[in-house]
């Protein structure tokens, strides 16, 4: 009897495997969007914004079918239900998947590159035996939804960024100044003016004040700078590996003589989107839940970046590289390239911690996973015991990498935790069970 039962179950699972699972197209679609962003060198805050809109339509499709999934209209400020009355019938999962690519096509600078991925998706559907009518219906629905999301996106003040006063580094000791080797302009100094999805205001979870700047060798500031200096000077192989793993610099410049080469990489947001894909797949979440988790992760990233960037251009704090070279050792260089914006708080600490809270809520603590996101950038895979462990490592990696002080990391984690918990409360309030 037992044997039979086992046999029965295994034959059932075979039938399951043969039946196409819509979830299998989800991760590749999100990753296709990631690849275009790597190509376009989208900066970290802007990347989070793009992910959010790409997944918003998908979530709306799913919420229309599944009572357990809250509609983004209950989460995202001012987002209204689209008018889908012109559509007769459509496969919502197909439409949701296609909508990710279609929104990306419309919103990304090199969105045209996603036309190729849309074609691939359609081909895969055909292989699965989906009828042309089913495909056409899904595409029509996705296009309508994508247009609706794009219209919503144009009201978030992003278009106004080019009308704002360009940033000038603040003159005076202790303030951020462009760093070598690129001395690039400050990234998105007005990002706090972008509309968040769930936060009331950009400064709703403003972090604690940073350690007061000082050049005095007995000061607290000197001490936290000295820690970064010392860490970099005596970097252990373990810490070096951690710092490199979580670098996530979308455009690190390497110079050789007069030659400058930019190395493109995934952004911190992109890394966490991929971890989310890995986790939802490993946890065998349903298509509907997977979409919700991906979409919520994206919105959490976006709100975290707004909160963090608000602080960055409030404190405008000097980077360790600048301070250490001026006050401790003029030959010191950080392991990682200093990103082109003020130091406080650490962006990776804020966003990683916030997202880890959200993922822990959806998938659970003690969820061990293997992260292979960085393999395409010639880095090894890395095992984690939990999302929180991964986030904690991402946060402290910035100290090992020589680009953040400890208070920036710890206060940033607190800021991220507050945002994460707030998002969870909002998702619960919206009816998620």
């Amino acid at each position: 009897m037992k044997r039979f039962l086992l046999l029965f179950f295994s034959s059932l699972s075979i039938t399951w495997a043969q039946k196409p699972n819509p979830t299998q197209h989800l991760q590749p679609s999100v990753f296709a969007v990631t690849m275009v962003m790597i190509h376009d060198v989208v900066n970290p805050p802007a990347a989070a914004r793009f992910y959010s809109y790409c997944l918003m339509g998908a979530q709306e499709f799913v919420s229309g079918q599944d009572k357990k999934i809250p509609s983004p209209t209950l989460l995202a400020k001012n987002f209204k239900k689209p008018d889908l009355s012109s559509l007769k019938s459509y496969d919502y999962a197909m439409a949701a998947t296609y909508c990710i690519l279609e929104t990306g096509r419309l919103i990304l600078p090199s969105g045209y590159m996603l036309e190729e991925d849309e074609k691939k998706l359609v081909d895969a559907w055909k292989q699965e035996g989906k009828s042309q009518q089913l495909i056409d219906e899904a595409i029509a629905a996705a296009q309508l939804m994508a247009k609706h999301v794009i219209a919503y996106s144009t009201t978030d003040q992003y278009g106004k960024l080019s009308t704002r006063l360009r940033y000038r580094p603040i003159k005076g000791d202790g303030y951020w100044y462009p760093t070598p080797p690129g001395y690039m302009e400050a990234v998105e100094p007005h990002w706090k003016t972008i509309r968040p999805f769930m936060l009331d205001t950009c400064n709703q979870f403003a972090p604690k004040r940073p350690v007061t700047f000082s050049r005095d060798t007995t000061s607290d500031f000197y001490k936290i700078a000295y820690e970064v200096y010392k860490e970099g000077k005596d970097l252990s192989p373990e810490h070096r590996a951690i710092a490199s793993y979580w670098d996530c610099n979308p455009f690190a410049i390497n110079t050789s003589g007069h030659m400058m080469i930019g190395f493109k990489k995934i952004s911190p947001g992109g890394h966490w989107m991929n971890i989310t894909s890995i986790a939802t797949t490993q946890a065998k979440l349903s298509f509907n839940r997977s979409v919700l988790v991906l979409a919520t992760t994206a919105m959490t990233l976006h709100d975290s970046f707004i909160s963090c960037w608000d602080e960055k251009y409030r404190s405008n704090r000097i980077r360790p590289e600048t301070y250490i070279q001026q006050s401790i050792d003029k030959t010191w260089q950080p392991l990682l390239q200093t990103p082109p914006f003020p130091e406080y708080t650490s962006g990776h600490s804020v966003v990683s911690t916030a997202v880890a809270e959200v993922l822990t809520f959806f998938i659970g603590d003690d969820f061990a996973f293997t992260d292979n996101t960085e393999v395409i950038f010639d880095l090894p895979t890395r095992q984690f015991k939990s999302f929180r462990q991964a986030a904690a490592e991402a946060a402290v990696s910035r100290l090992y990498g020589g680009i953040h002080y400890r208070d920036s990391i710890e206060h940033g984690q607190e800021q991220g935790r507050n945002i994460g918990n707030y998002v969870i409360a909002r998702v619960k309030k919206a009816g998620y069970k």
Partner: protein
Amino acid sequence: MEWGLTNPCVSNGAVYADLDNDGDLELVVNNINEPASIYQNLSRENNASNYLQFRLRSPKGNRNALGAKVTIYTKGSLQYQELMPVRGYLSSQPLTLHFGLGTYTNVDSVQIIWPDLSFEVLRNIKANQRLVVEQKNTKPWVASAIKKPVLFEKVKPLITHTHQGYSENDFKRQPLMLSMYSQSGPVLAKGDVNKDGLEDLFISGDQSNTGKILIQQKDGTFKGIDKLVIGDETTSAASAAVFFDANGDGYDDLYVAMGGYSLFEPNTASLQDLLYLNDGKGNLTLSALPSVNASSKSCVRVADYDLDGDLDLFVGGRVIPGKYPLSPSSYLLENKGKGEFIAHRFPINGMVTDAQWEDLDQDGRKDLIICGEFMPIKVFKNTPEGFTDQSSQYFSQEENGFWSSILVTDLDNDGVKEIIAGNLGTNSQIKVSPEQPGELYYADFDKNGSIDPIFCFYMQNKSYPFVSRDELNDQIFPMRRKFISYKDYSEATIDRILTPEQLSSALKWTVTEARSLLFRRDQGKFKKEILPIQSQFAPITQILAGDFSQHHQTDLLLLGNKSFNRLKLGTMDANYGCLLKAKGLGFEYVNQGESGLSVDGDVKSALQLRVNNQNYLVIGAFDQPLQFYHLK
């Protein structure tokens, strides 16, 4: 003649050297990822031109005589070189000094000043040889400071005042402007505030000085009026000023126009002009003015335009801060007597830089001549009913320019006045003509609330945008989707950047003339004459007329420069004071050595001041000390 340099490659270094010892210089170019190129110079083979080379040797120490100075004299002309073979990082040229002699086969004399400051003279040297000169029997050389009489003698400033401008970056506010508008000071104006017959001076403020009036004392020194602070440069920027009798009491009052750009907002106190009335005892107090704060101003010009016996003003609008290149408001300030004014908007298309009142049609009413950036020189006829644009009656064609100054005066004493107009000059990348105009397209193309100005001018017979792809993307985000590569953008013209709908809705300014000009009346119309090439070396912002060379004719002194431009345009500061001496009906440039002028900086104001019965030229340049020249 062809250069023969036809191989396209990427090169990052070159030296020249007479490799085949035939008296001309070969070119050695190093190329990236390719072998170096050597170009043989065929000048000597093809033309029978002559040369003379020197190889200098010292007995000890600096054996190659680095730093030696060699002057060769040939029939009234001289050539001079220093032996300095270093060229850039880790690069050097041969130690041979090479002089081309053209048709001369003989050099009259050669003076060599050796690095130890001893010298020798060689005479009657035959051309076409490499002369090896050993240092021996040389005599000590003493720099002979021959002081030639000059027309303008630079003197120690009678007033110690260094302008210290704010370090503004207007491109942070509107990245696509061609130049900045914040740098408007120092503004100078002269008048006689206490009616003692001595000229007093207004100097506008800056980040370290407050605006002030300096009273000339009997001994020729200047003393500020106690507790009088003119304007507040922390919230505004003076851009023009004039002393005139506003209230008809016979004493000079002061009008200060506010301009600049900075973070100033139109219709706020930052751009409100100021009027200081004189109480007849030399005390000036702030007096009410109607609201004239819609734009940043460029000039104030005084005339009794309505013939009611009091002095009225024209105030020119330069730019609307944050809204370049929209036409700013200019004003006509009608004096109701006693220094009370009514402000009338004076509609003009373009950004006004200067204006002059002149009764061109001799009907007894002063007409208004106006110039500006992206506009022609305009003549507005003054009638009892108002002003009418009669430019076409005075100019056979519109001369759209980057006009920056204008002077109306009778240069040739024939009773008919000429117009001298300062422009950008021809010493910049921007080349324009009526056939190949510079064009500025502007509108809010991406509908996000900011004006997107796109300037285009012709390169090799095709009009391209001046703005780079990065700059355009930064101004109009959707452009990133339109031009996905730099290569794609490199060939883009305005009709590809803008859609047909955008192009048709775009407003457009045109520039067809960049040269500074003189207009002479010819059968009623102004006919243009081009000022000498030296006048075109830099933008002209101040024009003074006078008999500077004391020959009973009217000369012209052109001052200017413009340093705060887009990085791609660079600094335009090749004007050191361009004196043009009247010669018959033409003008001849006077060498700086003869004029004595060595003016530094971007000149914002210039005037002649009489102190102790002596005439001085006073020049105010941005971030510079006041510069004083004594006029002979």
